[in-house]
């Protein structure tokens, strides 16, 4: 038997706390995509949160503790991949937390070089074009801020969506404008956050798409919550759900109840 | 400690040093003396013909009127025509010989000419431009006894004479010329003027004629 197959790439999955708690299917979809792309996926047990809440609140001490734990948990994996631009963006911030002469800095830089958001990983690193999805419908894509401005994620999700035969992408106005989630911002400045998400849902609905898609659960939970409160039928999903053909379960903020109603 | 000494001490402390090193002083000296150029936009590096075209286009885009004339002898008639169309007959002009020596007598019935500083109530003024910068359709003028700055700002209509040969591509070319004209010390006031005065301070609606001239007319000679 000739061994023409390349060895599978060892990937550590960064689950993200929001996927873990609120929408595990996002993490499962990510695993499926990575396996389709020829990766061997492991889920290091010692991961919890990327540390954004502490970092963005100026709590460097806690950020460092969480960073060290995360760095250690993911050492030994060729790649670290997660379904979130903001979480992977946070991993990219880890080197800033350590002084130049601190050995953790080099380890953080090493993690940074191996950490990718899922769509960027599939397109930029693996040149993957094997999306197989039966999803069908008009979608519009929200560009989450960290992914867009820290990691350069813009064209990759759109490229992957274009491989879904049944999906029709229609861009919304101000796709790149912040949805108002901002981690703790949405509870610290609820009035302003509400205005921002209200603007965003207006643009999303006006696009005429049936599904709002994005790459960050924080944004998606925020926008889905607002759409539901406003009584819109528009559905919200994480892009990996479409790409991995896992849209048979209820959309974000919906239940089997809604699913039954829709059928 | 004086304010000055405190400020300097603070800056130096922030920079992690006391006095600057000789090499730092040399760097500063060099930069000030050689005034190197930073990146120049390509649009300002075209052939002279194209530069003139660009200047005219950009100046008009900025709402200046551009009137080409073959030579200076045509200026008095052109000016009289311009002002008559606006119902204006009073003109204050700069004292430059190239202006004053023209045939103003020939239009004296249509136009009363004065040579002084600008005053509130002046209808129109006429001055020479030192250079035109094609990059943005900008005029460079400078203050001198013959051409007081108030002529550029107080009258309602500002008429400016610009020679084609004085159109340069970019501001940097104009600075070089200015340094040659006035080595070691700049004129008191150098004006870069791009179109007539305007403001959008009332409900973001753009209006011409805030405090400076309501209209800018450029006679392009050559």
């Amino acid at each position: 038997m000739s061994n023409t197959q390349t060895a599978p790439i060892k990937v550590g999955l960064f689950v993200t706390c929001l996927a873990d708690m609120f929408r595990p299917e996002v993490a499962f979809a990510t695993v499926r995509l990575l396996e389709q792309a020829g990766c061997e996926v492991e889920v290091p047990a010692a991961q919890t949160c990327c540390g954004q809440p502490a970092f963005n609140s100026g709590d460097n001490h806690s950020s460092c503790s969480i960073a060290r734990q995360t760095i250690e948990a993911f050492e030994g994996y060729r790649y670290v991949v997660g379904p979130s631009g903001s979480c992977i963006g946070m991993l990219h911030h880890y080197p800033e937390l350590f002084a130049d002469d601190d050995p953790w800095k080099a380890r953080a830089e090493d993690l940074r070089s191996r950490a990718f958001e899922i769509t960027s990983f599939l397109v930029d690193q693996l040149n993957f074009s094997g999306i197989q999805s039966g999803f069908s419908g008009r979608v519009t894509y929200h560009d989450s801020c960290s992914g867009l401005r820290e990691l350069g994620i813009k064209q990759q999700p759109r490229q992957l969506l274009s491989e879904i035969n049944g999906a029709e992408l229609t861009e919304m106005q101000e796709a790149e404008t912040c949805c108002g989630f901002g981690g703790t911002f949405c509870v610290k400045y609820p009035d302003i956050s509400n205005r921002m998400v209200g603007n965003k849902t207006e643009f999303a609905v006006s696009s005429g798409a049936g599904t709002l898609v994005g790459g960050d659960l924080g944004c998606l939970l925020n926008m889905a919550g607002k759409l539901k409160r406003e009584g819109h039928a528009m559905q919200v999903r994480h892009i990996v759900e479409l790409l991995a053909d896992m849209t048979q379960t209820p959309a974000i903020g919906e239940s089997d109840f809604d699913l039954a109603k829709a059928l | 400690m004086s304010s000055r000494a405190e400020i300097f001490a603070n800056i130096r402390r922030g920079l992690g040093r006391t006095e600057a090193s000789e090499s730092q002083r040399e760097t500063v000296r060099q930069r000030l003396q050689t005034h190197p150029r930073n990146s120049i936009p390509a649009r300002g590096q075209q052939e002279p013909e194209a530069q003139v075209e660009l200047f005219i286009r950009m100046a008009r885009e900025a709402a200046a009127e551009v009137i080409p004339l073959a030579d200076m002898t045509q200026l008095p008639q052109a000016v009289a025509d311009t002002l008559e169309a606006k119902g204006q007959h009073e003109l204050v002009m700069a004292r430059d010989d190239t202006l004053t020596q023209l045939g103003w007598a020939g239009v004296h019935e249509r136009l009363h000419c004065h040579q002084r500083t600008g005053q509130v109530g002046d209808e129109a003024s006429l001055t020479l431009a030192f250079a035109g910068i094609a990059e943005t359709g900008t005029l460079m003028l400078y203050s001198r006894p013959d051409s007081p700055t108030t002529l550029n700002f107080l009258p309602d209509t500002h008429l400016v004479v610009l020679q084609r040969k004085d159109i340069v591509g970019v501001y940097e070319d104009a600075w070089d010329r200015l340094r040659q004209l006035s080595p070691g010390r700049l004129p008191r006031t150098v004006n870069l003027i791009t179109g007539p005065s305007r403001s959008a301070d009332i409900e973001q609606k753009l209006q011409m004629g805030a405090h400076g001239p309501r209209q800018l007319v450029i006679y392009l000679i050559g």
Partner: protein
Amino acid sequence: MQIKSPEFKQSARIALQDVNLQKALGNLKAGFPGKRAAAVARLPEFDRLRDEARDLKNHILEHLDLYLEQFEARVVENGGQVHWCRTSEDARQTILQICREQNAKTVTKGKSMVTEEINLNEYLEANGVRPVETDLGEYILQLRGDHPSHIIAPAIHLNLEDVSEAFHEHHKRPKLNDPAELMAEAREMLRKQFVAADVGITGANFLVAETGSTIIVTNEGNGDLTQTLPKTHIVVSSIEKVVPTLEDMTLFLRLLARSATGQEFSVYNTLSSGNRRPDDQDGPENFHVVLVDNGRSDMVGTQFQDMLRCIRCSACMNHCPVYGAVGGHSYGWVYPGPMGSVLTPQMIGIEQAALLPNASTACGKCEEVCPVRIPLPKLMRHWREKEFERHLTPRAVRWGLGSWAFLATRPKLYRLFSACASRFMRLLGSKKGRISSLPLASGWTDHRDMPVPTGKTFMQQWHARQQQETKS
């Protein structure tokens, strides 16, 4: 002006409900961003110029003392005077002193944010000198007893009716409703003031060390009349505005108008190099440059140094979704938006300004459009670090963060917690898939539903699957 930054949340709430303000902000959002984008598209070199501008500013800051020395020497050679002012109070007193020496009754003013910063107008008035704002927007605000809400379009929060009322009341003329007529009336009224002024005060966009010049950038021409007609011209500028040469000034000018209003170049860019020359028919006899520190030299060498690159273009606030929702007055002091959120704590102290650097989602749009690439979100985060270090963060927030960090660094405990929390939320809202009201998270649920976890946590499910696979 009174500091109202601690009231940011209340001010923001009011601003969000203010129909007129929201309309004005809508105009801003419909105008500036698109115009900037168009101007950027027309200049292929734009991004390269931004890199050069950032590097040049960094170079200037490394040699700030040297360039300031050279600037001062040239100004003096040109017959001008340079005054160094460490604090706002120093600057106010210095300017008043110059006005007194001239027996000034009335002074005209070109637009200058630094004079707002040092609270100059109030001080002059209290000391018998009447300042008259000549920039149309500032003039309108002065008539109304109001303050700028934007650093280049100061009256952007006002509508036509506001202007109409103000002119009618103060000019004692019939009420006008047409913008062109209103501007014409302002032109007429202010011309008398320009001529009558004893002293003209302007700001400076840049100070040029090579030639000892100051430059003002306007579209109206008011700054020019302010500085040319009176006997004395006072330039008030902060210390970090010095640039080495005319060529260097040009680099920044190429970025300034495009970043601000989307114009290729502002109408009037005027370079002043000292006082009237022999035989000049007009121009000021006295030329003073008042250099203001007010906390800037303290920023050199600190993690906030990058903020000193700012060229006051306003691109950051024009693109900020928070500024776009609540307007400039909500920030409660002189400088609004992202740049204001970094500068205000520096100048009035983090104790009073803490809400400002927190009122951001760190979306990064400001940094994306900043012509000198200031990392504004990072600088805001540094203020949050300072706030946290000094225990100024609200106790509830600190406690919440502390609890979260405690759990997050103990994976096994975290799993337990997340499994319980997931279960709890599912119990509350599993039928509909969402919760409409969550007591501890009313900030969220007041305005939106909370999607509910779809099942057990991923880690629970993954662990179960792994166990199953091991068995089979």
